[in-house]
């Protein structure tokens, strides 16, 4: 199970191994990983082998984040509000994989409904980092990142509203890819913030990410925001020439001078990133430093919170325990719904709902919600402007390796906020965005991210693929470093 999709397919095709054997191995590994890191809500003991076809995914196990609706399989969103919810329909993306013969073997833990970046707020408990169980996986696709990194299967589905695929991928030393908004249908994905939510995948290689998204993508009559991408062939075109491609990075985020009291980890992380820029040049790409409005970057985290909380409070108002989910106690309907929601949601989510609701109040919309929408546009326009001159923006992910679960050893400074949160711009503008591992700090993986213009998924995958080939971190399996 530590092999790539192409390798596994070859083994299956030549009958050196069977789908059944892969499933057994994956389930066994699932239990080990569950024991050690608590990555799963459900392990599908009954998973059945499928016929091996020419489809690269046939017969191969994979994981599904538990905020995807899966037919006849518990789908909780890692929330007590849905702790017993068994949907009767599959999310479009899941259905497409099943149609391709892929075999779901577990449902992975997330931060409750994707609203969190730590992997610690799921209703089944904290997900630990397979490189160092005292550290976070980050989130919200925590279980998916952990399981792929630990070698349970070659890929798992994720969803990404702020950086929920790309950040945990970075902390776990794997690849995280969210394609252009609407390339994969969101039908059946439990919504967090509909204008920011993306489906995507976590893998151990760019090629695997290309294979999986090729299968998941496509226009869907159940999602008006999906579009026809039949002309895009990620796997076929991942080897495209990158020579003469132009990349840029943002000075305000990458220059150590902009940080008042940089940690050693931050220094190493940025230095490592600069080395990788040299690597890009060696591959024939041009790399330039650009400067963007610092004030705009500084408001980024608050803009994200404002938009995502506002949409979330509305999106999750269907969670009342009346039609599905455990019925609350009370004398009347209102009391029942209140009991369900009060008991069902974690404190973090409740606070965010209230903030979102306040922001949407008629008298507050202008100052908060509308202004957030305006800054969103300014940021997106800034990036779009960059794409007029550059093929992609390349940036380091986060301010270093995975943070500690107890937080005590992490020095969080206010001025790293934009560095921690810049991936959200990819969600603001629906840009295709991929994170790949780019080194180690103190034995723990760190990563860089490549984000391109909408619909240019093939391009950013080619760049990521070329860079991946030039670095020794492809297909790495997590091994505990302490």
């Amino acid at each position: 199970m530590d092999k790539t999709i192409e390798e596994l397919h070859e083994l299956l095709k030549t009958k050196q191994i069977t789908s059944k054997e892969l499933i057994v191995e994956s389930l066994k590994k699932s239990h080990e990983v569950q024991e050690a890191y608590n990555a799963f809500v459900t392990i599908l003991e009954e998973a059945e082998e499928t016929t091996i076809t020419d489809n690269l995914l046939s017969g191969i196990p994979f994981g599904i984040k538990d905020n995807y609706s899966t037919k006849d399989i518990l789908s909780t969103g890692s929330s007590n509000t849905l702790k017993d919810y068994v949907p009767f329909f599959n999310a479009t993306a899941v259905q497409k994989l099943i149609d391709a013969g892929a075999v779901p073997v577990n449902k992975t833990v997330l931060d409750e409904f994707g609203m969190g970046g730590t992997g610690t707020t799921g209703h089944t408990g904290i997900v630990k980092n397979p490189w160092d169980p005292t550290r976070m996986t980050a989130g919200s696709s925590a279980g998916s990142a952990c399981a792929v990194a630990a070698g349970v299967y070659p890929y798992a589905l994720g969803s990404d509203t702020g950086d929920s695929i790309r950040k945990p991928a970075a902390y776990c030393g794997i690849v995280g890819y969210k394609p252009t908004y609407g390339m994969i249908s969101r039908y059946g994905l439990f919504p967090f913030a509909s204008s920011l939510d993306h489906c995507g995948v976590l893998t151990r290689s760019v090629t695997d990410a290309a294979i999986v998204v090729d299968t998941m993508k496509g226009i869907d009559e159940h999602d008006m925001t999906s579009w026809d991408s039949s002309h895009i062939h990620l796997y076929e075109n991942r080897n495209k020439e990158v020579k003469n491609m132009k990349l840029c990075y943002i000075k305000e985020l990458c220059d150590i001078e902009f940080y008042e009291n940089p940690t050693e980890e931050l220094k190493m992380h940025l230095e490592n990133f600069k080395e990788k820029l040299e690597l890009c040049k060696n591959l024939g790409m041009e790399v330039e430093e650009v400067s963007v409005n610092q004030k705009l970057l500084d408001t980024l985290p608050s803009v994200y919170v404002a938009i995502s909380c506002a949409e979330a409070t509305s999106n999750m108002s269907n969670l009342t325990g009346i039609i599905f989910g455990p019925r609350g106690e009370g004398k009347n309907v209102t009391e029942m719904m209140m009991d369900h929601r009060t008991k069902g949601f974690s404190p973090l989510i409740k606070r965010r709902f209230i903030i979102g609701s306040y922001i949407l109040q008629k008298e507050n919309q202008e100052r908060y919600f509308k202004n957030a929408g305006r800054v969103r546009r300014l940021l997106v326009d800034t990036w779009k402007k960059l794409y007029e001159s550059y093929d992609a923006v390349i940036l380091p992910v986060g301010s270093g390796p995975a943070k500690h679960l107890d937080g005590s050893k992490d020095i969080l400074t206010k001025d790293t906020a934009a560095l921690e949160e810049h991936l959200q711009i990819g969600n603001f503008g629906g840009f295709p965005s991929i994170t790949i591992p780019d080194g180690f700090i103190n034995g723990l993986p760190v990563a860089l991210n490549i984000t391109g213009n909408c619909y240019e998924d093939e391009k950013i995958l080619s760049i990521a693929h070329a860079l991946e080939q030039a670095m020794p971190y492809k297909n790495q399996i997590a091994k505990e470093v302490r």
Partner: protein
Amino acid sequence: MPKFTSERVDDLAAKLLIGLSPEENQMVLDEFSIIDENLGKVEDFPNIKKVEPMTHCLDNFTCTLREDKIEASIPIEDALKNCDSVEGREIEVPKVVGGEN
């Protein structure tokens, strides 16, 4: 503009059908003060009011409206299987009195 107060937090929580502890109430105010400060700065951005707020992820959707075709109703067993209180073909709740709208 009225300030965000602990009373308003409780009022909003009640409308969202959520119960909050006093500690949680205070945390809302603390978290919000950061957002307030940050987004407050936006007011000073030049020409900010002329920017059309972004409401959708993409500006150039080419979306087609759905043709007016009927799909079969979902089986009643599926519709009700996750509900804890069912009466016949319907979802049952304590008697709803009064109207919102």
